[in-house]
């Protein structure tokens, strides 16, 4: 029994790295612009389907299709910003309706192009077992994208904290006029943050395709998962995303092991509610912080 618990702890942590990958883009946009991109999950899904096409039609390994998936999703992300930036008033609220609509359009686009069938990767390497210490079982894809999640979280944290444009982005979030007085064009920094969110969503999509199975109406589930992790983390906290994602991952796998896999999604939601009750600003949140 304790072996099973340890195994689900391990699997949960691995899943956390990959969940963080899905949530990072949403957290970045939310933390810096107070815009919740409800089309985020659909953007991840779009990348997953591009990886599927690369594999099934052209025989390209999904990992090698990352540049293509990223390019497509970055383009989509910039188009989303193009629309969001046209909102004249109450951007925080109106962008919800706008991005929700974009999500529906994207879902139907995916449905039209790729049909409603369930897809998953046929490249055997991704499903090869990786066994650590004779006790912990996982697949290559899980380990690969766990590491990718860790690496990209760290990279994003560094970028926001230390780079010129990362710092400028936080400055724009903190005080738009004062940032302009420092020579910052707020639109440039916001486009950059949407480009980075697109890049992260693109990689997350390929991860999704190789780790799990995909179908066209998965998009909003992904958005909800990313949103729950973002809130759990404390709005805008990047290291919090990793911790929040791992908590969700572990809780889900523990639920599967100890109770039933039917309750998997419920656990995440219950944790979400508990955090909202006990610590409304999230695990790492203080009011309005970014970074």
């Amino acid at each position, binding site marked *: 029994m304790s072996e099973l618990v340890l195994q689900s702890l391990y699997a949960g942590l691995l899943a956390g790295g990959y969940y963080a990958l899905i949530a990072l883009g949403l957290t970045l946009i939310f933390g810096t612009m107070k815009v919740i991109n409800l089309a985020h999950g659909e953007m991840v899904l779009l990348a997953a389907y591009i990886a599927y096409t690369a594999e099934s039609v052209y025989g390209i390994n999904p990992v090698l299709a990352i540049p293509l998936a990223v390019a497509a999703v970055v383009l989509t992300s910039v188009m989303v910003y193009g629309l969001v930036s046209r909102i004249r008033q109450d951007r925080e609220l109106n962008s919800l309706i706008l991005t929700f609509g974009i999500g529906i359009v994207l879902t139907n686009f995916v449905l039209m192009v790729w049909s409603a069938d369930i897809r998953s990767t046929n490249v055997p390497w991704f499903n090869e077992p990786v066994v650590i210490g004779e006790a912990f079982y996982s697949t290559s894809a899980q380990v690969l994208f766990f590491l990718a999640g860790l690496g990209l979280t760290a990279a994003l944290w560094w970028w926001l904290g230390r780079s*010129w444009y990362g*710092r*400028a982005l*936080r*400055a724009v979030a*903190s*005080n738009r*006029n*004062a*940032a*302009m*007085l*420092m*020579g*910052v*064009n707020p639109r440039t920094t916001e486009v950059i943050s949407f480009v980075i969110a697109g890049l992260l969503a693109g990689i997350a999509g390929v991860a999704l395709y190789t780790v799990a199975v995909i179908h066209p109406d998965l998009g909003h589930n992904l958005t909800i998962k990313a949103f729950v992790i973002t809130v759990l983390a404390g709005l805008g906290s990047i290291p919090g995303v990793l911790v929040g994602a791992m908590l969700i991952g572990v809780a889900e796998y523990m639920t599967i092991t100890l109770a039933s896999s039917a309750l998997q999604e419920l656990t995440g939601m219950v944790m979400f509610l508990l955090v909202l009750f006990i610590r409304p600003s999230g695990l790492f949140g203080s009011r*309005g*912080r*970014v970074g």
Partner: protein
Amino acid sequence: MLEVDKLRAGYGAINILWDLSLTIREGQTTVIVGPNGAGKTTLLRAIMGLIKASRGDIRLNGRTTANRATWDIVHDGVIMIPEGRLVFRDMTVEDNLMMGAFPRHCRKGAKQNLAQVYDLFPRLAERRHQAAGSLSGGEAQMVAMGRGLMEEPKVVLIDEPSLGLAPVVVDEIFRIIARLKREGRTIVLVEQNTHRALAVADHVYLMRSGQVALSEPASAVNLDRLHDLYFAAEAAGA
């Protein structure tokens, strides 16, 4: 160097500046005094392009800044040190200061300038990792000043640096302004504390209800007459 020509500007339907004209000469310290609501801050905001002129023109070295964005004006070397409340509250002191070096031509000297700012304001060095929002009013003003120094400005617009601060801090702030003046930078200082401001001024403007009420070289200013004009304006405005 900087010319404001019959400028009319304000916020939406409310007009503040009424055909205001003034000239800022290179290397000089120009002090603008005037009662609350005279439009001093509005003038600085208009020069920085944060609000657009509805009529008139602002020229920098003979070139109009009318269609230029705030960040372009900053890249041309004209910067504004806003009052201390406009620091980035949820960023650390050091991040605030480093934001000053954002314009491309300032980045190379950023490390050196940062060390210099910490030299000038040792208190900021102590609090470098603290959120700027947790600082006292005086410390926040120091952050705003330090951030401005990081921008390596040619023209510095300073908005009420002594507002609501303890006399010791005001001394410190004016020491920095005197230093900027010695370095040969062009300074526009908006200040309520006329006595302190006159000590560093080359030229003085008195603003009243969005217009220039008095323009004199600092040496010719009679403080009593200035105060009479200053308070008369307040009485007339009430």
